């Protein structure tokens, strides 16, 4: 990469980078994507048919993956779309097919304690709003620009290590693969008819 461009990118307002790297129409995309994510989340919590909820959750996951792209995290965005929207939601749809009897989708939507749940969630929202209002001074006004193009390599070097050394999270990565093995075994054993 151009070394002069590197120096120009450090701690600079995002509108004054060179033409190849400046983000375009950031507020429009941010409000569009966050509106989609929040609308999808609202539909997940309130639709009667579980398949509608699953589709709304897929919309939310893809909107959040695009928000990761806006936050200069392309690897996490790709992992989110492939694993979350492409794996976990397909699993949910299969289970909905297996367990959703017709009676369940014509039942009442909310359980017996829904006022308590709603009051708790409103209290939680009030707590978040007070935290954001009180802590506004902690966050900087502008976001610094980050050079693109090496995000995946840097994440990979943190996960796998480089040049014979271990990365910071190599041990956690191995533990995560062990966790997936245990989850696979648990799911298979639990759904067997005769153990």
């Amino acid at each position, binding site marked *: 990469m151009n070394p002069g461009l590197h120096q120009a990118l450090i701690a600079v307002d995002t509108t004054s980078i060179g033409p190849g790297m400046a983000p375009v129409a950031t507020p429009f995309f941010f409000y569009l994507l966050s509106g989609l994510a929040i609308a999808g989340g609202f539909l*997940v*919590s309130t639709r009667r048919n579980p398949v509608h909820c699953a589709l709304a959750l897929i919309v939310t996951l893809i909107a*959040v993956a695009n928000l990761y792209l806006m936050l200069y995290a392309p690897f996490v965005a790709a992992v989110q779309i492939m694993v979350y929207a492409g794996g976990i939601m397909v699993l949910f749809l299969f289970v909905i097919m297996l367990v959703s009897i017709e009676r369940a989708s014509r039942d009442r939507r909310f359980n017996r304690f829904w006022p308590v749940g709603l009051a708790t969630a409103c209290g939680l929202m009030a707590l978040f709003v007070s935290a954001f209002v009180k802590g506004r001074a902690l966050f900087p006004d502008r*976001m610094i620009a980050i050079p693109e193009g090496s995000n995946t390599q840097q994440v990979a070097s943190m996960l796998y290590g480089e040049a014979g050394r271990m990365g910071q999270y190599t041990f956690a990565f191995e533990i995560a693969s062990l*966790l997936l093995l245990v989850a696979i075994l648990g799911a298979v054993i639990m759904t067997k008819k005769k153990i």
Partner: protein
Amino acid sequence: MVPITTIHYLVVAAALFVLGVIGVLTRRNVVIVLMSIELILNAVNLNLVAFSRMWGRLDGQVFAIFIVVDAAAEAAVGLGILIAFFRNKDTINVDEIDLLKW
């Protein structure tokens, strides 16, 4: 227009979190409760990646990847439990899952 800063992303993550909490606490269908838990995990992921952008380090993104892995494992096991329970009791209603009640 106001430039988009970290707080904007945190507000979106908080809204998704509260919507997930509403789904967990108020829905009757167990599958939808599990989907709301996934929504909560996504809100936490968005928070982590926003902070990773704010500080310029990649630890938040690596932690977000681990949370995605963990959510996959948890969804698989939770749905396995649900299928086993459905096979025994033929209901997916949280109001009727009360075998451990006193």
